Structures are given as structure tokens and as C-alpha cells.
């Protein structure tokens, strides 16, 4: 059992890690709440649309026709990616940009995968949800903003761990879930903080830690691009540059032949940082709940449409891919999203009650605060 003196450092760790990260965690929890439902909100705002109902017998449109139609809409731009949405198997998305290697997209088109019809353009960089997303991802401060939020996430993890260490001594004489409402406001807030903190602990830890991993997405993919991807395309470096892009449909068919039990998640076009100078990379996903979150890159010659190499993604990219659903809560239907939102609200209550305890008692010495510990001292008997 921890003694009063051995608790003190944990108390200080809990206090200071919490104080530094709480304002940012409140921002992340508040902006994260609507983001849980971003798909539903996009649909409600008309930012995205369901594909029209067609008979089951409707075939599949030729991808090359879709690529041509996208290019015709923005003749000066390049196609960077074609993207599939597992939730909308009848849609293809085409991401365009000023050049194939540009960091920012210029348009995001949705096409009917059965008829090839153009359906809608997803609005980029506009609307309230875009503001919410940017606040959540980087606070409008780019990569450094993202990495800063990752650091705040690490402090949250330290705060949660130190909070668990403190939970034991504070609950030494209290049955689980005790909330002493009648004695003092402070005891009530303290008990609520302990209760909500301990019940949301695992979820908050997992969402916090996977959020930290998500903040590392750019360096993680950068490592893969400069390592594995560079190795994959190295043998073709000396070949003449790509004259004309071959058939995208043929490339996709070839990828499907190599990975028959997988489907395309997205395909990067030659010259993009996710592809080679003269190769497509098709990122294939599995068809089970878990493997559908993972990706397998297939390198395809962009002129001949032949598969030249495929390999598994390294562990650090797989860790990132697994972190995404565990952070977003988008892998168990609408009920899971609602529970995710409720747990998020409880986490806001944990942050808020912790902040409240500090604001009310910041003029009181640490010894007096540790006096709330049930250790049988005179002070304790007075208050307990």
C-alpha cells in the first residue's frame, strides 16, 4: 500500500500532466464529438450523397472512362488517387490536384461505380465541419500542430496512469462508486472524478494512445515511402520516364488477380508520393472485419498494367492502420458511434471535474489536499 509520502510524487505527476494537457484535451473531446458522426453529418448537409438505387444486375463501369470524365472536369489538373469507401461499394472517388505530387487536393469527385455517372463533388476546405476537423487535427498549425497535440496526448496517458495509481489510496475506505454528496462539494467532485475516471479509463487510454499514433501518420508514411516504397521502385529508376498512362482498369484487374480475396482501398497514380515514378500502387484491403482495416501495396507498371511486386506493410504502418478505427469508433455501426459519443462526454466530465477540483483548491497546500486520503489521521476523521 502506498504511504502518504510515496503518493506525493504521483499526485504531482497527475496534477502537472493534467494541468498542461487539459485545455487541449477539452478541445479534442469537444471537437471529436461531432467528428464521430462526420459521415452522417456530411450526408445531412448534402456534402455527400447515396448512390441511386439500381437493379442488382447493374454491372461495373470501366474505370478508365471514369478517369477520363474526372479529367474532363478539370483539364489542367492531374488524378492523384482513386479511392473506394467500404461503406459505399457502388461509389468510386477520384482525387484531383494541380499536379500528381501536390500535397493539397483541388477536387474530390464521386462517380457511380456501376454506370460511371458523375454524382457529386465533395466540398473541400469549407463548412463548419472542416473547421472542427482542423481544430481537432492540427489547430490550423500544420504538422507541428498535429505533433504538438500528439505530445499533449502523451501527457494525457501519463495523467491517466498516475490517476490510476492515486485511485487506490483515495478509495481505501470507500466502496466502489461511493459519491459523498452530503458532506462537502469538494468531496462530491472528488468522488465523481474518481468514479468517472476509473470507469472510462480503458476507453480514454485507448482513444488517447491511438490518437497519439494518428498524430504520427505523416512521419510513419514518410518512413515507409523513403524505406520500403523506395526499395520497391528502385529497380526501375533507370528506366525511361512514363510516356503515357496505361489503362487504370487493367492495372486494377491485375491487382485483383494477385490478391483475389481483397478489394481496392485506394490506388496512387505515378508520380505521387504513394506510388512510383512510373508505377501505380494499388492498396488492397482484406474482406474480414480486421483485415479490411489493413492494407497491402501492389506495385503495378503504369504502362503495361502488369503487377511487378507486392509486399506486406511494415509493423509501424499496420499499427497506424489499426489505430484509426480504435480512435474513430467507426467500426461497429451507429450504436457504437453513439456509445463512443457517450464515453467522450464522460471523458469531458472527467476533465472538467479535475479542472474544477484544481480551481477550487489551488490555494491549498498539497498536504491539505492529501488530507482527503482516508488514512485515519485527525484531519481525516473530521471530514470522513
Amino acid at each position, binding site marked *: 500500500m502506498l504511504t502518504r509520502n510515496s503518493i506525493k510524487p504521483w499526485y504531482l505527476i497527475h496534477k502537472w500532466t493534467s494541468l498542461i494537457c487539459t485545455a487541449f484535451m477539452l478541445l479534442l473531446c469537444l471537437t471529436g464529438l461531432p467528428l464521430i458522426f462526420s459521415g452522417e453529418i456530411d450526408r445531412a448537409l448534402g456534402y455527400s450523397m447515396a448512390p441511386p438505387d439500381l437493379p442488382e444486375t447493374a454491372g461495373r463501369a470501366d474505370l478508365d472512362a471514369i478517369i477520363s470524365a474526372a479529367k474532363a472536369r478539370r483539364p489542367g489538373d492531374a488524378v492523384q488517387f482513386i479511392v473506394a469507401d467500404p461503406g459505399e461499394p457502388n461509389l468510386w472517388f477520384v482525387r484531383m490536384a494541380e499536379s500528381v505530387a501536390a500535397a493539397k487536393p483541388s477536387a474530390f469527385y464521386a462517380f457511380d461505380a456501376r454506370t460511371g455517372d458523375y454524382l457529386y463533388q465533395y466540398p473541400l476546405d469549407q463548412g463548419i465541419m472542416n473547421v472542427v476537423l482542423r481544430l481537432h487535427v492540427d489547430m490550423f498549425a500544420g504538422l507541428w500542430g498535429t505533433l504538438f497535440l500528439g505530445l499533449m496526448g502523451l501527457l494525457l496517458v501519463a495523467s491517466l496512469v498516475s490517476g490510476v495509481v492515486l485511485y487506490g489510496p483515495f478509495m481505501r475506505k470507500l466502496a466502489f462508486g461511493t459519491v459523498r454528496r452530503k458532506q462537502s462539494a469538494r468531496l462530491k467532485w472528488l468522488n465523481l472524478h474518481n468514479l468517472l475516471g476509473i470507469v472510462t479509463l480503458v476507453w480514454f487510454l485507448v482513444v488517447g494512445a491511438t490518437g497519439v499514433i494518428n498524430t504520427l501518420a505523416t512521419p510513419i508514411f514518410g518512413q515507409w515511402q523513403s524505406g520500403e516504397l523506395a526499395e520497391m521502385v528502385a529497380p526501375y529508376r533507370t528506366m525511361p520516364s512514363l510516356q503515357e498512362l496505361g489503362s487504370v482498369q487493367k492495372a486494377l484487374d491485375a491487382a485483383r488477380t494477385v490478391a483475389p480475396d481483397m478489394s481496392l482501398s485506394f490506388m496512387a497514380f505515378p508520380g505521387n508520393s504513394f506510388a512510383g515514378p512510373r508505377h501505380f500502387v494499388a492498396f488492397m484491403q482484406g474482406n474480414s472485419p480486421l483485415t479490411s482495416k489493413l492494407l497491402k501495396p501492389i506495385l503495378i507498371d503504369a504502362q503495361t498494367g502488369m503487377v511487378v511486386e507486392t509486399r506486406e506493410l511494415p509493423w509501424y504502418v499496420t499499427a497506424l492502420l489499426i489505430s484509426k*478505427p480504435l480512435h474513430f469508433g467507426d467500426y461497429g455501426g451507429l450504436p457504437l458511434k453513439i456509445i463512443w459519443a457517450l*464515453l467522450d462526454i464522460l471523458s469531458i466530465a472527467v476533465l472538467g471535474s479535475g479542472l474544477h477540483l484544481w480551481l477550487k483548491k489551488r490555494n491549498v497546500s498539497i498536504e491539505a489536499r492529501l488530507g482527503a486520503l482516508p488514512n485515519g489521521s485527525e484531519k481525516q476523521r473530521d471530514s470522513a
Partner: protein
Amino acid sequence: MKTSLTGIQIWGMPILLGLVSVSGLIAALLFDGIGDVVSWLALAAPVVTALWYGVLRT
């Protein structure tokens, strides 16, 4: 003066809720259908516990 609780009295519920939460987080990741239902029920447990002790029980 109340006597100290044993370790299991203090940590029993937190550990149980932690294990239930972990199983809920993993279930929907591994299995469709029944896995989704298990995740809803398991992750509802901390929410219901918080509401019961924090709000409803006076």
C-alpha cells in the same frame, strides 16, 4: 473508524470494467454481426456504471 478495504474490494470493479471495455473494443474489430453486438453491450457497461453511481443512485 472504517477499516481499510481489501485489494479486491477496491480493484475488483475497476478490473472487471477494464476487461469488459477491452473485450468490447476488440469484439467489433474481429467479428461482424455478433461482434458488433458484443461491443455495444460491453462498451455500454462503463456508461451505465457511471450513470448509475454518478447520477441515479442518490
